[in-house]
């Protein structure tokens, strides 16, 4: 029983970073209707910026991390403004290719500028300490990730519900033409959405980085976050979070009780199953276009 609970808790802990990545992807999917394959690298570049600020410039974390988060917002806005917006009458496939291209550019930039060596990120709390809940362990870093993920979800919920920009974003996502007629600057709203998405991804990156910093560190969390978003529904923020936790828990249960060897691929089996049963995901409404 202890093992089972430990497995579930470990699944929830890892699901938190998937959830943040999934949230970032869903935000952009809702704004630009494209699965954003540059989500991982939008977190990767800021992580390396944080590393430089901490290691090379010796800045304290309470300055380096906020500065990095601000950078990530600018990065997201810049990518939308400079690249996505410039695409002429893009279809979904074209946009996907553009995000893959951006992914390669950012990954190439990081690999060229910082090299391929693995690095250790200085972090205010140790990634190797843990606390006990009864007989069950949770590392302090996992606990922090869980708490931060929950806070971000709550803030996003409040932001979309009550803030003017949040409501404008929802309006733009639901009907762009109508939103524009209401005086909303939809281009600017889309750019801000990319900025917020980049911020959320960057938080995930900064919480993954204390374990190991390397150019390919965001690839797996991005894929699992994407899997979670597809499971929950690409147009539902709570769905993406729930889906990511499902992926984390199922992955751990499968690894613990069936086969560690195939643990990594089980997330994609879940995707196939969900898409067969509910093509829009568990939480998103299935829209049928009426002619």
């Amino acid at each position, binding site marked *: 029983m202890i093992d089972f609970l430990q497995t579930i808790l470990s699944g929830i802990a890892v699901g938190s970073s998937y959830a943040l990545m999934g949230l970032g992807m869903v935000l952009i999917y809702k704004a630009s209707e494209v699965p954003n394959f540059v989500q991982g690298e939008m977190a990767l570049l800021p992580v390396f910026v944080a590393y430089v600020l901490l290691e090379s410039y010796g800045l304290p974390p309470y300055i380096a991390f906020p500065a990095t988060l601000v950078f990530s917002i600018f990065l997201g806005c810049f990518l939308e403004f400079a690249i996505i917006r410039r695409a002429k009458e893009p279809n979904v496939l074209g946009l996907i290719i553009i995000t893959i291209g951006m992914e390669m550019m950012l990954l190439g930039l990081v690999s060229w500028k910082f090299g391929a060596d693995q*690095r250790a990120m200085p972090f205010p709390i140790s990634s190797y300490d843990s606390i006990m809940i009864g007989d069950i362990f949770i590392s302090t870093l996992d606990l922090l990730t869980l708490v931060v993920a929950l806070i971000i979800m709550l803030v996003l919920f409040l932001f979309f519900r009550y803030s003017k920009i949040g409501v404008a974003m929802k309006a733009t996502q639901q009907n762009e033409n109508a939103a524009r007629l209401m005086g909303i600057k939809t281009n600017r709203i889309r750019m801000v959405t990319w900025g917020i998405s980049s911020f959320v991804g960057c938080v995930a990156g900064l919480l993954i980085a204390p374990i190991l910093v390397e150019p390919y560190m965001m690839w797996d969390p991005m894929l699992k976050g994407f899997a979670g978003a597809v499971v929950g529904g690409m147009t539902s923020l709570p769905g993406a979070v729930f889906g990511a936790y499902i992926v984390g828990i199922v992955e751990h249960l499968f690894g613990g009780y069936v086969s560690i060897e195939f643990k990594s691929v089980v997330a994609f089996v879940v995707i196939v199953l969900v898409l067969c049963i509910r093509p829009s995901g568990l939480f998103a409404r299935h829209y049928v276009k009426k002619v």
Partner: protein
Amino acid sequence: MKKKSVWILVAITAMVFGLTFNAMAEEGVTDTEIHIGQWGPQTGPAAPWGAVARGTDAYFKMINAEGGIHGRKLIHHYFDDAYNPAKTKAGVKQLQEEIGMFAWVSGVGTAPGMAVEDYLMERKIPWISPSTGSAHWVDPPKKQLFALYPLYSGDAQVLVRYAAQDMGLKRIAITYQNDDYGKLGLVGAQKQMTKEGMKLVAEIPVNVADTDMKPHIMALRKAEADAVLMFVTPGHVARLIGTGKAMKFEPQWMTTTTCGDVPLMMYITKGLYAGTILASFGMLDPAAVGIGNVEDVNNPTLPLMKKYFNDAYKKYAAKDERWGMTFAAGIAYAEPLVEGLRRAGRNLTREGFIKQMEGIRNFQGIMGRVNYKPFDPKDPLCRLGQNEVFISQATADGKYKVLTDWIKTDYVNYE
């Protein structure tokens, strides 16, 4: 008219002699140059091993600065294959067919190497020191392929033996990468455990893409392992030890040459690597350092390592290149090639070179003793240069504490 005829005759004679001379010359060899090819990942997930090719490059530059080999410079052609076998094959074919290599050296990765092995062997092109400890290179042996790297199964043997006999540990487990590298380690560990009259208490596979090690640690903890062998990548070692520490699971960690760059491992594990026991194939001589003594990789005791540090690394490595095991290994893998070229003399042919390589006995550079034998299709050891390793332990200040002298390993491959 007569004068013109003489010139035509001279030209034809020169062409005929030129053609004859060219037909006699060995591919990749000119009066002043020997062309050597190499691949290695400079980008992609395996890029940290890119230092191997850069180490070889610095070594060749050092040799050229010292006058080359029998009046010829070594021209090093290395390319980035990003650890992608398709790119390896394309790059090797391009260099071989457009420029013409006399031989190939090193080459990181089992899968990239396997992609070009047939191509090189069918054309009888020598390939020295594939940079992996796979048994594939020697089982069956190939005439032009000289392996150097001791097999991973040998690392596993000595680690298990040390854990069981010297440390008295009974519950030994293994985490292994789910590929040729990890599985060969697993086979070596299983065989040695049988010899010790025990069985591994857990055999946990790790996929290269795995980043979350909690299920692996839970399985090891459940098995109550008191020693764990890790045949995985350096990044996975960091994740395993770190996750273990967070989950209050701290057995005696043991690992292999692949994860034996102690300063790097100490850095990426934030010091948790201290105390880890590792099998090593060289870069220091345990007999010279002395059992129980400590070696600093930045202040090597081995005179040859000191020379490479000063004359190759300091003079020819890029400014931000780190001196470490991976860089030095790039030198070590090329040492038998250089020795073979020296022995082959000025009249360099592939046939003569192979013959000289087969005559290498007890050659020692910065790895262990290297021995080859005349080709015997039934004897893998005729093409496996080194089959001894030693055991050391990572110290808290990022050095190597030597625990044993060289230990000869048995040849173990899959059944």
